[in-house]
């Protein structure tokens, strides 16, 4: 699966305003709703579900990245986006380091295969040192979208 099949470029946040995890999650989900990828009345529920998910176990898998994700009945179509924090956010990451790049993924229920394919696409890129470095350095929405495009093309 390609990133562009579920990453909503218009919702990318090149500079997350929030300094804490829950605030960052809300910003990203609100941005997805603003781009029309999620019903506006679903924002609160989805944010609450994401926070609960983080409390059960951080999705900060280390190396400065976090991949908060949730399957939720109010999500009608799989959608994701990317947020970047210059100062870093405490995600209670596995390696106890701040998170600079957040990839959010929202999936409908009853589509576990699709969800796993999307996670596969995200992590295939996140495990690459160069991708993580470029993502952290990309300071505009366009630059991040371009990076994701290039990743899809295998560059």
């Amino acid at each position, binding site marked *: 699966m390609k990133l562009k099949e579920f990453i909503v470029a218009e919702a990318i946040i090149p500079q997350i305003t929030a300094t804490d995890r829950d605030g960052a999650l809300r910003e990203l989900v609100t941005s997805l709703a603003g781009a029309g990828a999620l019903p506006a009345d679903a924002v609160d529920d989805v944010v609450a579900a994401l926070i609960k998910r983080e409390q*059960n*176990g951080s*999705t900060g*898998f*280390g190396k400065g990245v976090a*991949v908060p*994700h949730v399957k939720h009945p109010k999500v009608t179509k799989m959608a994701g986006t990317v947020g970047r924090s210059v100062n870093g956010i405490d995600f209670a990451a*596995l390696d106890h380091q701040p998170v600079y790049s957040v990839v959010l993924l929202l999936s409908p229920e009853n589509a*576990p*295969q699709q*969800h*796993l*394919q999307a*996670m*596969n696409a995200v*992590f*295939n890129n*996140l*495990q690459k040192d160069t991708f993580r470095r470029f993502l952290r350095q990309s300071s505009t929405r366009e630059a991040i979208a371009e990076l994701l495009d290039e990743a899809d093309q295998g560059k």
Partner: protein
Amino acid sequence: MIADCDLRFAIEIKSHIANRKLQIMPSASRDIIVSNKLGLHARPAMQFVDLANQFKSDIKVTKFGDEPGEADGKSVMEMIILAATEGTKMRIDAEGEDAEEAVAKLKQLFEDKFGEGE
């Protein structure tokens, strides 16, 4: 140019070393099938890696099927990248002094459906 007998000798030494390595490094493996409905998503992958990290052995996970793959059983990212769905056939290989215990306990996770109940 290497004479035939030299070559044979070299092969013998090589297999001797390989056998010795096998003797000092126990290994074990188990075939498994992903049986939980949601597949090997992030939470079970982390559960697996947490348990794998409690053993000294190296743990390797091989995924069979249309999109085969291999992962270090102690790396969350590599395990998630496997994207193993329900019904996927896999194998856990361990190499190290606690290899047998490691594969037995790791297989149990799959049999328990990672506590998901379905």
